[in-house]
């Protein structure tokens, strides 16, 4: 069996060795066991179902909350020659969806958004397939205590039952022991085999640098990039900032190749920038959290946080993009007394306000009274200015409270309505408090005097390994002692004839390679 596994690995991916944790999970999965896999970012979680999808008979269904990520992954799989993979999500139009529904038996791996699994017709088609494995990616989304709670995930247990109880594989990179328990409970899968791997990264040093105000942050980064011309990612919390910072840094450090990346760019440009960074054609990326998911660049040496994320879990994920090759890498967080402002604003916009909720409920009452039982979701969203996260939250609450059944409004008494409004208000307050507490955890970490590595990872695991290189600024880190491996820059000509020659393998200097 083991020999076969490595054979398949080599055959399908060209690698000859599994990374930590992969083989154990895949072995269990192939034996039909349900598993919970907690593997650190960048450890190749997706292989744990992609390989089984190729080997097993039947269909592997993967629930993933991130549409862009599933599209990227399917593209990558197709590039590797795995054509029986497809992503099913709201971006497809009616005919495209129908085509997938009717040819389900021709696929081996289907990625779906959680919303898609609420589509009765799709479920009916799924029931006709033999499902070999049901994968819950980013499984922490199922937990109210997780950092990216997705109400849709709570319905997954019913879906699993509905499609005939296939083996389940729940995967996450960041789940505290509480969240792990919650995942198992919510999926109703007590018999899950647990594969929990420590998420601390012993080759990354943690540095917090306090500066007087935001305007010194870029100066500091520029000075650092002058001395260390290494593959670098700089995280910002707004799209506009990534653009501005890239421009400013470009003038400060003109010999570095710097670009920005965010979710608002057009598809082609996003692919180009991503690929350039992968291919060492870019040195520095100024990005939002949209960058990095699903790409696996091994030699990122420096990750900088210009702005704070809203919680420790995201921070750990972003930090984890550094040093995947195991070499000495650094995370630098730039801090000042206004650290909390932006993340707080973000948290505010993730949930609807009391006012919005009250107005929506009035509007719904009006609809029901005039016998209008369907909701135009996009109209509601524009009218009450809900963003996607807010509306998803509210819609789920309306369903839970029985005000919406099968996408139709239900008549309720006015006393019930009052109670529901009250309930939702309370819930919003509670979730906001929870999110703010998570932000406070991160802020406290910044101001903590203890070892940064220990303080960061102890909530997630029992022990933290000692650092392989330098540890953190509280354990005596100094940039002088950091000697990162420098990736050799490709020397490229600016002359178009040279560029064209080398692109097409023409001219003398390519004869050797191609003959």
């Amino acid at each position, binding site marked *: 069996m083991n020999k076969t596994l490595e054979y398949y690995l080599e055959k399908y991916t060209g690698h000859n060795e599994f990374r930590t944790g992969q083989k154990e999970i895949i072995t269990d999965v192939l034996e039909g066991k349900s598993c919970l896999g907690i593997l650190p970012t960048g450890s190749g979680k997706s292989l744990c179902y992609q390989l089984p999808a190729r080997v097993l008979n039947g269909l592997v269904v993967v629930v993933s909350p991130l549409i862009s990520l599933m599209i990227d992954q399917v*593209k*990558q799989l197709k*590039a*590797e*020659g795995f054509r029986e993979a497809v992503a099913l999500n709201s971006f497809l139009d009616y005919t495209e969806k129908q085509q997938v529904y009717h040819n389900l038996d021709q696929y081996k791996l289907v990625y779906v958004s959680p919303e898609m699994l609420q589509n009765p017709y799709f479920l009916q088609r799924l029931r006709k397939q033999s499902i070999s494995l049901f994968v819950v990616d980013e499984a922490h989304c199922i937990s109210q205590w997780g950092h990216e709670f997705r109400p849709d995930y709570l319905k997954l247990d019913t879906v699993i039952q509905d499609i005939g109880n296939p083996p389940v594989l729940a995967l996450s990179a960041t789940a505290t022991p509480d969240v792990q328990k919650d995942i198992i409970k919510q999926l109703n899968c007590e018999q899950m085999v647990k594969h929990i791997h420590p998420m601390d990264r012993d080759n990354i040093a943690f540095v917090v640098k306090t500066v007087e105000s935001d305007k010194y942050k870029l100066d500091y980064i520029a000075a650092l990039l002058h001395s260390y011309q290494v593959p670098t990612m700089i995280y910002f919390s707004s799209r506009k900032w990534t653009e501005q910072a890239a421009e400013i840094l*470009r003038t400060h450090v003109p010999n570095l190749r710097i*670009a920005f990346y965010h979710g608002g760019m057009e*598809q*082609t*440009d996003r*692919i*180009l*920038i991503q*690929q*350039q960074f992968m*291919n060492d*054609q870019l040195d520095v990326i100024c990005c939002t959290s949209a960058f990095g998911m699903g790409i696996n660049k091994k030699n990122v040496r420096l990750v900088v946080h210009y702005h704070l994320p809203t919680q420790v879990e995201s921070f750990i994920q972003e930090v984890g993009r550094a040093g995947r090759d195991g070499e000495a890498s650094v995370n630098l967080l730039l801090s000042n007394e206004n650290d909390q402002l932006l993340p707080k604003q973000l948290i505010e916009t993730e949930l609807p306000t009391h006012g919005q909720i009250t107005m929506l409920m009035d509007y719904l009452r009006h609809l029901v009274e005039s016998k209008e039982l369907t909701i135009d979701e996009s109209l509601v969203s524009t009218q009450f200015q809900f963003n996607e996260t807010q509306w998803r939250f509210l819609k789920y609450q309306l369903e839970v409270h029985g005000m919406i059944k099968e996408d139709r409004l239900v008549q309720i008494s006015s006393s019930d309505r009052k109670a529901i409004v009250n309930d939702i208000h309370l819930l919003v307050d509670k979730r906001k408090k929870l999110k703010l507490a998570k932000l406070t955890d991160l802020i406290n970490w910044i101001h903590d005097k203890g070892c940064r590595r220990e303080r960061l990872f102890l909530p997630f695991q029992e022990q933290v390994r000692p650092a392989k290189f330098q540890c953190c600024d509280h354990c005596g880190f100094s940039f002088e002692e950091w000697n990162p491996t420098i990736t050799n820059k490709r020397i490229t000509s*600016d*002359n*178009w*004839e040279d*560029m*064209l*020659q*080398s*692109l*097409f*393998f*023409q001219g003398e200097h390519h004869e050797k390679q*191609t003959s």
Partner: protein
Amino acid sequence: MFSLIILDCLMKLRKERTISAIYHLLTGKRSSQTLQDAHMYQLTGYFGLIKSLQRKEFNKCMERMVKNGLISIDNDGVGFPTKKGEDYLITNNQSNILEEFKGMEYEKFAELFSLRLLLLIQTITNKKAESTGFIALTDDKQAQLWVKQLYRKYRHELDQLVTGIYHDLHAFLSKLTDQQASLFVERLTGYEKIGLSKLQLANKYKMNILDIEVWLVYIYHKILTESIHEKDKYPYLTLALEGIMDQTFVTNSATVTYNMLQNGFTIDAIARSRRLKLNTIEDHIVEIAYMDPYFTIGNFVGEAEQKEMLKAIELLQTNRLKLIKTKLNDKFSYFQIRLVLAKHRLEDKGSM
């Protein structure tokens, strides 16, 4: 380059249109007004040059040109070049570079051609390097299908194909300035060489992003012109033209109808001799009117009648056949209305 185009448009529009007309022209708006303007003022070359151009961006550019003293815009939004603008246009368009834009002529296939070429280069250079895992730079299904088929055909002569495309491109690019050639080559994606985004090109060459946009279009139009007119000189580039040039009509049956019309047959005669319904032949003729810019519909609808219909269409602000027909007191048949819409490149919204 972008300002040159604007200046040229303003010169030719002779203060008879607002600057919005230029915006609609550049984004390729399919309205009778825009199409008429394009023909009337000899601006067809610029039709649809930057389909994705945002109004905001366009306005910003206009403001910049006003500030630089190249143009003036009056209170009604009518723009015209200043003396400085006129001089600027004359000095910078000495080689008649602006005449090489063929927006309307190449409208149907310029983009597909460029996507085919880009994807082909990415594919064959990766295959040559025996690299399998690369992410296609376009999702366009038509382009992907074509590259797949071509690659299958040349799989065993890959070296020949790579070298062939190289020599064709080299020969073509040598006709451009170094900067133009560089822009083109930097944009290409191949094995371990990812092309630059338009913004990156703009930064590197210290140009406005709109200038980059129009330069790239300029180069592609030029490749098209060269490879259409000198097929023998560019045997490999011409491959990417396959099927898009002679795809004048969607259906073969329409081609037969077309040939018969050219030989003087009437609709009735064609229907009789081909044993087809009159309706079918009418459909063909509408299709032909849509695809062939030189096709005259005078035999089916007179000039004055066309004008009458266009006026009604403009007045109604609709392309709905039924409404137009009623408005004109059922004076014209659906066929005639559809024909006028097709000829003037207006979308047919059906008779409902």
